[in-house]
């Protein structure tokens, strides 16, 4: 049977079919949909599935489940692997009992912000095998294979995908679920599960290296494919595979190829054998020349001179996701032929000039709109210029405060980093106030240690926690601060209490829909010596609308509106439309209004009114 599944959905299906009993992760594009797909089925499947507080904790949970004999998987985006790596590097040395799979999705081409990190290097650094997925079907099949390998070698296995596979859907052949229901059991073995002695650590290192070789033997013939047809060769891996196949079929190309499905360890012998028949080679892999460098090593050691096209000679870029066009161009370079003409560049240039750019702002009714408006006004109220006040931003919806019309945030580094950076600016000698903004989920994830540090070191800074109750940017996942609902966890951890527990003394709570009060409270907090925390609390407007919490909408009184457009320029709310009408312009608030009421407060003419009786 076939189903239309994205790469991530296919991984979810693979998890079900493999009999996995513990699934955890932290949301992050382009990996989120694995747990997003599974979580609603948790009860029916009878297995534990959770959004953990961060990727490191998620990895530890999955690991212990595997040590107790269960199959377990942890999912994350590439940045999450950086967070998890501290634990994972140690875990890999110890190995595992039940199958343990680490699913990570890279984002070449940056579909969702952040770095173009090549996570394949973690497999080398951590000394663990890594399978590299190149299609939606493999997304399912490799999950099952990864569990099989992990249990055979008794060590964790990395499973890596990229956005152009994880987010694209295709017809995927699905199989049957195996239910394992293993009994949990763990035996004490400190030479394997602790690391206080050099000899134990080095033995564990040796074990990891041995496991790598075993993994390679098990999967070699199953994931690496060879096709021999002439002296021109291509070594291809990951997402580049599909566009390569598209080109081979479209132009009926005659060439040899080796498709690699395990990137650590690489199939040295197979590559050596393949190179024997090749005079000119193209290496197709997105991001860094990970395979290409190794192919050069293998070719050097085998003493055969081969022309190698790839990143080192500039044929291909180390940036972005490879389009069909780029793959086609590289094949043209390999074969020294012209394969097909393209659209007239004049037409494309002209179209690009005319194109309508659609800058993103906050959603209709977003509480962050009120918070950033209030921060800017508080800065002004204290007679500072906006250009003089550093506001460090953080990951998630809250970073949109860097965009027009607010332009409040200055930096974005990593989860929780806004609070750490703010302290560094103060110690560097920035005398004017420094502010940090951070969302609720980001705060729980990695914002607590830097808050404790700031309190302990008594740094003067203001931390604004924008608490909308959801991990909204990635698609409204629950987090420890989410209000208990029918479908969510009944526990709720109050950020204010967490801040108190971290030793913060000056903590205030505002409702960002109440602008005047918010401005005053933020201004006071900025003036407060030492650490001040403002929790700006109001549920994500899209989520509260889904829950039918409707606020009265607003309308423009056409007699009072002068068409000054202050509302538009200060809030940029997508619910507003401006109708230029003769000399006098007129604003309209469309029915998509979520009733935040901010426009009413910023209108200098008092021309915006609440629609009474309408909810």
């Amino acid at each position, binding site marked *: 049977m076939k189903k239309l599944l994205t790469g991530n959905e296919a991984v979810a299906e693979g998890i079900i079919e493999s009999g996995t009993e513990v699934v955890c992760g932290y949301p992050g594009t382009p990996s989120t949909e694995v747990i997003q797909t599974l979580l609603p089925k948790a009860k029916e499947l009878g297995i534990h599935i959770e959004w953990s507080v961060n990727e490191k904790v998620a990895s530890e949970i999955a690991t212990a489940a595997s040590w107790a004999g269960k199959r377990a998987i942890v999912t994350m985006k590439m940045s999450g692997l950086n967070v998890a790596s501290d634990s994972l590097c140690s875990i890999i040395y110890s190995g595992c009992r039940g199958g343990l799979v680490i699913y990570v999705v890279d984002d070449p081409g940056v579909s969702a912000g952040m770095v173009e990190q090549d996570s394949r290097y973690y497999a080398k650094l951590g000394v663990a095998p890594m399978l590299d997925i190149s299609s939606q079907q493999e997304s399912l099949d490799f999950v099952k294979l990864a569990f099989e390998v992990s249990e055979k070698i008794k060590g964790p296995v990395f499973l890596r995908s990229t956005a152009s596979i994880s987010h694209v*859907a295709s017809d995927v052949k699905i199989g049957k679920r195996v239910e394992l229901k293993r009994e949990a059991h763990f035996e004490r073995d400190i030479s394997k599960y602790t690391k206080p002695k050099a000899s134990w650590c080095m033995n564990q290192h040796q074990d990891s290296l041995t496991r790598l070789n075993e993994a390679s033997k098990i999967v070699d013939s199953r994931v690496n494919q060879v096709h021999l047809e002439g002296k021109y060769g291509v070594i291809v891996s990951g997402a580049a595979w*599909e566009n390569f196949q598209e080109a081979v079929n479209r132009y009926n190309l005659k060439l040899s190829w080796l498709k690699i499905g395990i990137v650590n360890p690489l199939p040295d012998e197979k590559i050596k054998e393949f190179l024997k028949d090749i005079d000119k080679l193209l290496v197709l892999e997105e991001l860094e020349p990970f395979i290409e460098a190794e192919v050069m090593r293998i070719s050097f050691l085998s003493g055969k001179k081969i022309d190698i096209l790839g990143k080192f000679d500039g044929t291909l870029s180390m940036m972005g996701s490879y389009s069909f066009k780029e793959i086609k161009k590289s094949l043209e370079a390999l074969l020294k032929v012209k394969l097909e003409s393209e659209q007239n560049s004049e037409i494309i240039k002209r179209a690009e000039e005319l194109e309508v750019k659609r800058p993103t702002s906050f959603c209709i009714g977003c509480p962050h709109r009120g918070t950033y408006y209030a921060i800017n006004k508080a800065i002004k109220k204290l007679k500072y210029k906006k250009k003089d006040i550093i506001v460090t931003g953080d990951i998630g919806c809250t970073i949109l405060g860097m965009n027009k019309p607010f332009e409040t945030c200055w930096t974005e580094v990593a989860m929780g980093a806004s609070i750490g950076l703010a302290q560094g600016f103060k110690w560097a000698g920035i005398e004017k106030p420094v502010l940090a903004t951070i969302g609720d989920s980001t705060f729980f994830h990695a914002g607590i240690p830097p808050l404790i540090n700031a309190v302990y070191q008594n740094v003067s800074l203001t931390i604004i926690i924008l608490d909308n109750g959801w991990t909204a940017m990635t698609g409204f996942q629950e987090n420890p601060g989410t209000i208990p609902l029918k479908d969510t966890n009944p526990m709720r951890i109050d950020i204010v209490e967490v801040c108190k527990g971290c030793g913060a003394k000056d903590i205030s709570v505002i409702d960002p829909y109440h602008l005047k009060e918010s401005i005053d409270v933020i201004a006071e907090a900025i003036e407060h010596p030492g650490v001040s925390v403002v929790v700006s609390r109001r549920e994500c407007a899209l989520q509260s609308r889904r829950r039918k919490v409707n606020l009265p909408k607003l309308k423009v009184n056409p007699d009072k509106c002068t068409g000054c457009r202050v509302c538009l320029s200060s809030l940029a709310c997508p619910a*507003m439309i401006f109708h230029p009408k003769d000399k006098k312009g007129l604003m309209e608030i469309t029915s998509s209004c979520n009733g935040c009421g901010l426009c009413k407060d910023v209108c200098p003419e008092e021309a915006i009114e609440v629609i009474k009786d309408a909810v």
Partner: protein
Amino acid sequence: MQYNIYLAGVGGQGVVRLSEIIARYAMEKGKRVKFYKEIGLAQRGGPVHCEVRIGDVFGPRIPPLSSNIMVIMELSEVLKALELIKPKGVVILNKKKVYPIDMMAHPERYPKQEEIIKLLNDAKAEIIWIDAEKIALEVGLPIAENNVLLGALSSISSFDKECILNVLRKSIPREIDKNIAAFNKGYEVVNPIR
């Protein structure tokens, strides 16, 4: 054989739902499918575009000059896809314009319709105009604009009408009759070309 469909619009117009119905239809027909969706920050006013590739396809995205048909729900969004139009390929243009935030106060900055048409003509596209908003209003369901266009696309592409209507029925939660009416109106306003 490949059939490559490019669909574009802005958040809230139902581009993804429309595309998904086509992808599911192709599955029903036992075809291979690649379904790419770029959603990004659609909720926050961003553009949305999907690519549905049917038949002997491998890559996730439509290669240059290979789109057999386009459905453009927001007029200017076609400008981002000119590279893909196959000569003689069909472009179904909806008349709708949606201004981004920084253009709201200056609608005159929106690209001129004549210029868009000229570029499409230069790219040798076969343009088919549809006022989907008007038709959707006629059937009494303004949000069914996407289904008007689905009807038009199905007719032009000579899709199995019964089959795609079945997929449509399964995928819409409410107002089924009005959605089907919107589909039928779209189906009737165009003529199949293949």
